């Protein structure tokens, strides 16, 4: 995001909410919330400067448990609502956050279209590879063979590949973190916040209730930091990133997987913001008499 507001000195206390979380004990969403909070603190963004727009799902309840501006909306629609908010008030640091079912199933069209527009928001996908809140059906990111109530003989679909889709759609920042590593993830989210343009951050997430196999140990074994394994990894190269996306060794590369700083953002080009960058909601609604007369005159 192009952050136009003055950075604030904020601490964890500022984000502390009175609301009791309803997540299961051991849910990865706790780690994601902590990572997000750390990122905001480190970026100097106060609770009143940010807007967390979520959909519906376990992960989408996050705005209920953190003291910050939020809007908990509809399953799959958080991203497009976030973009509307961003266009009307670009001053707010706008983050869309939701589960994998929400963001990559129901909501994939909005993700794809707003990536190619390079909307200047951050999208965080809480990816537990399952539908949590509806009690454990397979999701668009579930692995083939995953047995759930709607796939009792094992899922027969190939999973959505968020990195590949992000690259194809034109996201200008693609990162991946993991709920078990809040610090590492916080760093990625912070860089996403500071990135100018659409930043997609997938956070792998444990769900001890419905995705028991993929627990903390499993993720430890199945994930790696891309820069640790390949210090020469050039995240500016889309082809290298696509190769990584297609690599099918069952392991998740983590870190900043792609970054492109050369695309204009959508809002930079919006006619209504060309002459003035004042958010439309801060502008006077008054219409001058002669402007009004001119408008009418066009019909005479």
């Amino acid at each position: 995001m192009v952050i136009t507001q003055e950075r604030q000195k904020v601490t964890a206390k500022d984000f502390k909410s009175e609301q009791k979380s309803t997540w299961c004990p051991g849910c990865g969403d706790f780690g994601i919330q902590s990572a997000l909070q750390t990122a905001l603190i480190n970026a100097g963004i106060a609770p009143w400067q940010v807007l967390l727009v979520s959909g519906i799902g376990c992960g989408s309840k996050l705005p209920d448990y953190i003291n910050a501006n939020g809007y908990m909306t509809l399953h799959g629609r958080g991203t497009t609502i976030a973009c509307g908010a961003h266009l009307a008030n670009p001053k707010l640091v706008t983050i869309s956050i939701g589960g994998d079912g929400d963001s990559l199933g129901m909501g994939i069209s909005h993700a794809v279209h707003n990536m190619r527009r390079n909307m200047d928001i951050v999208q965080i996908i809480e990816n537990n590879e399952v539908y949590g809140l509806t009690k454990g059906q397979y999701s668009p990111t579930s692995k083939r063979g995953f047995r759930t109530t709607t796939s009792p003989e094992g899922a027969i679909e190939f999973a959505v590949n968020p990195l590949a889709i992000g690259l194809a759609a034109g996201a200008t920042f693609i990162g991946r973190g993991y709920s078990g590593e809040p610090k590492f993830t916080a760093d990625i989210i912070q860089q996403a916040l500071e990135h100018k343009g659409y930043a997609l951050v997938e956070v792998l997430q444990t769900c001890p209730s419905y995705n028991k196999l993929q627990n903390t140990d499993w993720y430890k074994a199945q994930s790696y930091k891309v820069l640790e394994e390949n210090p020469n990894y050039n995240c500016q190269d889309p082809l290298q990133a696509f190769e990584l996306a297609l690599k099918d060794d069952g392991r998740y590369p983590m870190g900043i997987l792609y970054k492109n700083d050369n695309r204009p953002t959508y809002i930079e080009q919006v006619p209504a913001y060309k002459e003035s960058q004042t958010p439309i909601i801060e502008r006077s609604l008054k219409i001058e008499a002669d402007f009004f007369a001119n408008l009418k005159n066009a019909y005479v």
Partner: protein
Amino acid sequence: MTQKKRISIKIAGAQGQGAGSGGQGLSKVLKRAGYHVFGVFDFMSLIKGGHSFYQISFSDQTIHANTEKFHILLCFDPQNTEETVADIETLNEGGLFFVDDAVVLKPEITVAIEKVGAKLCPIPMIRLGTEIGGNRIMGNTVGLGAIVGSLKIPFDFLDEVVQQNFAKKSKEIAASNSAVAKAGYDYGLSNFGDSFKFEMPNAKKEKTAGNMLINGNEAIAFGSYVGGCRFVSAYPMTPGTSVFEWFTKSNSKLGVVTKHTEDEIAAICMAIGAGQVGARAMTSTSGGGFCLMVEALGLAGMTEVPVVIVNAQRGGPSTGLPTRTEQSDLLFAINASHGEFPRIVLTPGTIEQCYEAGYRAHNLAAKYQTPVIILTDLLLSEQIKDTDPNFYQLPQIELGKVVSPAELDAMEEPYLRYKFTEDGVSPRALYGHPKSVHAPATDEHDETGHITEDATNRNRMMEKRMKKHESALQDIKGPEFFGAENASLTLIIWGSTYGAVREAVEIFNEDEKNKEKINLLHYSEVWPFPLEATNAALKKVKLGVCLEQNYTSQFARLLLSEAGYNVNYKLNKYDGRQFTPEEILVEVKRVFAESLVNSTK
């Protein structure tokens, strides 16, 4: 039939031949020349080909709808024999039929001309267009010129419009069009200047020349803009598109953020996102797109976000008749989305009411923090009527209950987004202030916006939201009568049928032979249902006849469910074509006759 003198012109052609733009241009000429004008475009769901036509009526008095018969027919597509014959059959005896003189007319056509007793007026459209303008398509301008000439309206009015229309392109183009128009004009004047035998209405230039010719969708858009709308996200769908395009076309001039989205779900969601952060936001669509907005409508209802949705109805169901008119989304709009929440539904019936609906919608949305639906339709969207520019004023902008940053600064208790209040409306503070931090949920929530399943809170929140339905009633306009005071029959109507019914009422009541008189009762706002005003009005209704452009008499059913009033007769039309005053009069007479039989039985 009426003392209102009116002349009607039809310009017909295959789509892409310019009947639409020709009709609009001619309307402007007639208005500037001193006539009240009314025009509607009738077209098909295709880009080129088919058969479409523009209908214009002009008069010394304001016109509210076209009638069925014409005095002049300009035909660009005589190759469409069947359609052309049908058009000719709507000509009055002595009417003029203009057509290119290079075309060898099919016998069916000449027979038809003879049958109605029209006069064939061949004009060298393509020849003059090509010779003078260097372009076949300029033949259209020749045709228009010929009409104006035959009516002996001074050429200057035509010239001015032609020059203005082409000024954007280049001086040369404007000049050559002007020359073509003049050639057509002269041809028409010299060859058919004496052929037009109908009495012309009196021209009163000083009265009409300054009037505005604006269509229903432009009026909605314009009204919305002056009502403070600064965010419009939409997805094209006929006939809702042109509301959106009014904004996009002058994007930077207006300072409005516009977004052509990937679908209608995104269209309304973006508007709600914008509304939630404080913009006066809107979207525009037609029934099929409105279907896709229904889930988010509930989101706005539940989280109390002001947002305006224009649903311009067309022939349904499904893709239906995409370029034809219908009033079949009324009960859908009132009941759309699961669960229950307040909403406001406006149903403008005239161009003026479209303008009002535009700003009223935004004011009401802000005041009651709830979605407002403007239910218009294709007929209104394609309709132009000259209006006194003084009618168009800048309205008062109502922001509703807002908590300013200064008030937040001074606030001691914590800010409650959904505070319980007397009228159900909770003061609204925007995001961006340290004391206004809030995070509303579409789940049931408490006063802060946090999720809760508590039963007592649930009851209070439902009651708080629904209280807004009661509160909004005070702002809803009741129905209005037009016509005879003590009429024996009242046509009860809503939305766009106003024009045709009004003309019918005028015509009927003027006829001395009709001893019993009729009137109309028109609803331009229907939800929350204006019960008190309805009850008061219905006391004056003797024989209630509900007339609607739909199959299932939706408004009549609404009248029954909300006011317990059972209309005596229902008139319906659902072929996608507008009601004509003539048709309505036939039905009115039938009803009178039937009710007489019934009452003497």
